[in-house]
Structures are given as structure tokens and as C-alpha cells.
């Protein structure tokens, strides 16, 4: 099904050909946005079109978007999550600055498709002004509520976003039912990443076939990636889906030969060694590629110690625990301490086992995925930096410590 119902009076705008898509024209001006992309399309058939497009969430989990939309109860709350708590990611900030109306178009479209009674945008304090201005420039924008959340890592978790939208507390909640289902004292809640909504705004106008004209079968469309670390051209970049790590490094003016490892998907992501630089990004872990997560790509230069960096990230993640759940609150600092001992070159032969054990101990034992993501990242680090682990356990390191 396509959205070419006769609406002769609607100016549909031009479908972007090739790249970039999201940042043509790359403006916060509402008029210019409408001139480039045309009016907001009908929402009828949107969910089917998104399903045909194969769009997956761009917030980290990579869940099939159409499935989430279809599961959403009526008269609920649709939330655009633009809080971007991942320090290695700036793609959503870029969207808010250079294409806020695409995000808001997506939110309005999705709101109509799921018959939401309320639309909310959740942002960090730094972006409150730019979003309020964009909302104010839109016809009927006053019905969109803007909520400011904390600049903490776990504030970006879906249940924390839902909670801050209703009670102002930016911490995850224990759940036995999905957010999209109705619960006692909580309406159905849809949380979508800002970038996901931006893609929906274009799929709604130009269709699934256009969306799939770039990307691969397992990762259709385009993705916003944030490249950082020892790269030539850091920053957000839009690339076709299914790009390999080598292609991404190349697009960021970086020679893969000079890179020790890459952290794909943010602080909860996966460390990848040169052996796997030819593997493509995929939305979710399915064995065929590297999970893209929130789309951040951090490159560790050759000669840098991955253990040192991993220990630093683990300590940051431990500090970012919401502090509500015992295993996370206690387990993550213990894990970080063990990694710090490893970084310092502690010769305890049981240390590697202790690190793996602590990582395994916290998985699934919290009300959100913060401990799971941390454990996953640490596990991949111990694997990719195995050589450095051995060196550290013998008390030395040949690399530079950051």
C-alpha cells in the first residue's frame, strides 16, 4: 500500500535522492522545511508503510518500529525521545538543531496513527529552547508538550522517559507489561527515538520503496551515525544502512589500519577488532553483523590501551546507575573497581575471571537494561583486548593509557 491517494492541493515536496536525506535542507525554519518536503501527509496506512519500509528503532534497541506502533493502545501518549543520554552520540542534537520539524512531523504522524491523546517531546535542558521555538513555529504546535529531563545516562531508558513525561522523575520503573499497553494509572505510552520519527516523517511522504532504495535488506534505509575518537572527521554523519565499520571509518576520513578497535553502539555497545571491520551494522544482534545500537562509532587509535578506556567507561556507567536496584548499584562499581585494578597492572591471575563473573552477575537483575548493557560492553572488551588483558595481568602495558 502506498500513500499516493489523490490530494491534488497538497504540495508533496521532492523525495531526497541519495544522501543526505534527513538534513536536506538542514534547517530549523518551518517554511523552508515545508518547501523542501511538502505538507504533512495523511496518517492512514502509515503503520503498514513503516512495516513495508522495515524501519527499526534508532534509539539503541533496534526494535521493528511498525510492530511497536501496531501494539500501541489507543488514547495514549506518544513521546519523542530526544534526550540522547549517550555521551558518544550527538545525532539527535543535530536533528533538533538542523531538522527539528522532521522529528515533530514524525511525532504528529505517529500520534495520529495510534490515536494518541497527547504528544510529548523529552529533551535535555540544553535543547529546550530550540525545541520550544520549533514547536511554537508549527500550526497546532501548542498541543505538543515539551519536557526537560536530566542529563544522565539512564534518563534515556524508555520507562524513565515515560516516567519523566508524567511525573517528572527521570528514573526507570519496574514493569511487568509493555509500555505500549495500558496499566493501572498509566495510559499506553509510545516512546520513539527522535531519529526514528524523522525517518517516519519521510516514509510517510515518500513511501517504503523510496526508503529501501538505500541500505541493505537487513538494515534498510539510512542511519545517523556519530563518529568520534581518533578519526579525521568526527561528528554526525548519515550513511546507508548496513555499512561496514571500514566504510564508516573511511567516510570519517580515517585509515582503518591506524585503528586498534572500534566501540559500536555507545557505552552499552560492542567492541570490534580489525578482524571484524568488514562486518556490517545491523539493527539487532542476530549473528549477521554488529548491532548498531544508538549509532555511535568510537575509534580507538592504534597504540591506545583498550583496558584503560573500558575501565573509564565502566566507572562512568557505575556512577550513572539510577541507584534503585541493589545488584546494579553494587555490582557495577565492583566491576569498575576490578577493571581499574586490571588497568593498573594487578598481577592477580583470578582478576580476569572476577571481571567476567561480575559482568555475568548483573545481567537481567535490574529494572532497566543499564547493567545488561554495561556487562555486554565489558564482555566484548575482554574479548577484543585479550592481548592487553594478558599483558596487564603480567604487570605491564605497551599501549598509551588515556
Amino acid at each position, binding site marked *: 500500500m502506498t500513500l499516493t491517494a489523490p490530494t491534488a492541493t497538497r504540495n508533496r515536496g521532492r523525495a531526497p535522492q541519495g544522501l543526505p536525506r534527513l538534513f536536506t535542507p538542514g534547517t530549523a525554519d518551518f517554511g523552508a522545511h515545508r518547501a523542501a518536503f511538502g505538507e504533512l501527509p495523511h496518517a492512514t496506512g502509515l503503520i503498514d508503510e513503516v512495516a513495508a519500509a522495515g524501519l527499526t528503532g534508532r534509539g539503541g534497541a533496534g526494535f521493528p518500529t511498525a510492530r511497536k506502533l501496531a501494539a500501541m493502545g489507543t488514547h495514549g501518549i506518544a513521546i519523542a525521545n530526544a534526550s540522547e543520554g549517550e555521551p558518544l552520540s550527538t545525532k539527535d542534537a543535530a536533528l533538533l538543531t538542523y531538522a527539528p520539524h522532521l522529528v515533530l512531523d514524525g511525532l504528529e504522524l505517529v500520534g495520529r496513527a495510534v490515536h494518541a491523546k497527547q504528544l510529548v517531546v523529552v529533551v535535555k535542558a540544553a535543547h529546550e529552547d530550540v525545541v520550544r521555538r520549533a514547536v511554537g513555529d508549527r500550526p497546532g504546535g501548542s498541543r505538543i508538550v515539551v519536557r526537560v529531563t536530566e542529563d544522565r545516562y539512564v534518563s534515556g531508558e524508555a520507562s524513565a522517559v515515560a516516567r519523566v513525561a508524567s511525573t517528572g522523575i527521570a528514573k526507570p520503573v519496574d514493569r511487568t507489561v509493555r509500555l505500549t499497553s495500558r496499566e493501572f494509572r498509566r495510559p499506553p505510552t509510545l516512546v520513539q527515538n527522535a531519529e526514528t520519527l524523522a525517518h517516519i516523517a519521510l516514509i510517510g511522504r515518500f513511501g517504503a520503496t523510496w526508503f529501501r532504495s538505500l541500505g541493505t535488506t537487513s538494515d534498510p534505509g539510512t542511519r545517523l551515525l556519530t563518529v568520534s575518537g581518533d578519526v579525521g572527521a568526527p561528528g554526525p554523519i548519515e550513511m546507508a544502512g548496513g555499512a561496514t565499520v571500514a566504510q564508516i571509518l573511511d567516510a570519517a576520513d580515517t585509515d582503518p589500519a591506524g585503528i586498534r578497535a572500534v566501540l559500536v553502539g555507545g557505552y552499552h555497545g560492542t567492541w570490534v577488532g580489525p578482524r571484524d571491520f568488514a562486518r556490517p551494522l545491523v539493527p539487532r544482534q542476530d549473528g549477521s553483523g554488529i548491532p548498531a545500537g544508538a549509532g555511535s562509532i568510537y575509534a580507538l587509535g592504534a597504540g591506545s590501551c583498550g583496558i584503560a578506556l573500558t575501565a573509564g567507561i565502566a566507572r562512568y556507567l557505575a556512577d550513572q546507575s539510577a541507584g*534503585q536496584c541493589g545488584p546494579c548499584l553494587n555490582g557495577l562499581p565492583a566491576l569498575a573497581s576490578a577493571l581499574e585494578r586490571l588497568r593498573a597492572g594487578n598481577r592477580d591471575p583470578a582478576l580476569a575471571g572476577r571481571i567476567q563473573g561480575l559482568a555475568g552477575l548483573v545481567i537481567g537483575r535490574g529494572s532497566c537494561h543499564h547493567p545488561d548493557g554495561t556487562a555486554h560492553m565489558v564482555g566484548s572488551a575482554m574479548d577484543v583486548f585479550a592481548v592487553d588483558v594478558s599483558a596487564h595481568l603480567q604487570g605491564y602495558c605497551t599501549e598509551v593509557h588515556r
Partner: protein
Amino acid sequence: MSEAFWALGRGSGVVLLALLTVSVLLGLLTRSGRPIGRLPRFGVTLVHRNVALLSVVFLAVHVLSLLGDPYAQLRLVDLVVPFAGAQSPFWLGLGTLALDLMLAVTITALLRRWIGQRVFRAVHWATYPLWSIALAHGLGQGSDARSTWFLAGAAVAAVCVLSAAIWRTSVGFVEHRRHRLEPVR
């Protein structure tokens, strides 16, 4: 006949005080999350509940038997309104207060799943004044209050509860507290 009611009232009152004391001590042990001897933690919880419920039974016996004794001059209104009694209104009033508190604690405990942990816990703090008021009532109102064995028993109970309460305030009271960070709730 009224002699029998009177005796039953006195006797059940003494037993009630003993049961309440044991219940408070078991409650503190429950809160500490520790087992005792061969009794596992869930056993401590169950015994605490059962002793508490048994004390409710003895409270009913105590009150009903005194209602049936004309010498006590206890009216139904004295069961809920404190300090309005015909005879020694103050000490009787303490008993009424204790009964009212006992009702609140018992009902909230039985309905814990429905009213939630927070409300249950808030009302449960009343067990401290409940026990203290019940003891005072027994010492002031009770006919055995002048006897040595009763005073000795009351002293022992007071020492036990006081020591346990002091233990309650110590850092290592709850199992594992010394070795972990506590969640913010």
C-alpha cells in the same frame, strides 16, 4: 460468676502483655532479615505474625471478659473512646488507646498487599507506642501490678524491648548492610 470474668480478664491481660512483648521482639528480628537458631527467615516472619494474631485473640478475651464483669464497669464506648471510663479513666484510657492502635496495626497488616508497603510500614511504627502504652496500662490499671512477679516480668520485658530497640539503631542491624550500598527509594 463475675469473679470468673475478672480472673479471666486479669489473666488474659498478663498473657497479652507477654505475647505483645514476644511479638515486638520477633518483629525486630524480622526486620533485621536474620534467621535464629534453626528457624529460617521466613519462619521468623511466620512466627511473628502468628504470635501477633494470637495476641489479638487474647485482646478479644481480655476485653470481652471485662465487659462481662460488672465490677470493671467497662462500657462498649470505652473500647474506642479513651479516657472516658467510669473507673480510673486514665489507666483505662491507655488500654483503649492500645486497643485502637492494635486494630490499626492488625488491619493494615492483613491488608498489606492492597494498601502497599509504604502505608503498611508507616502504621506499623505504631507498634512501639502500642507496646509501651499497653505496658503502662498493665502497670497502672492491672490488679496484679503491685505483685513482685508481675513487676519483675514487666522489668524483664522492658529490658528486652529496650535492648532490641537499641540494636535496631545499630549500623549492622540489617543483614548485609555493612557490605553494600543501599538503593535510594
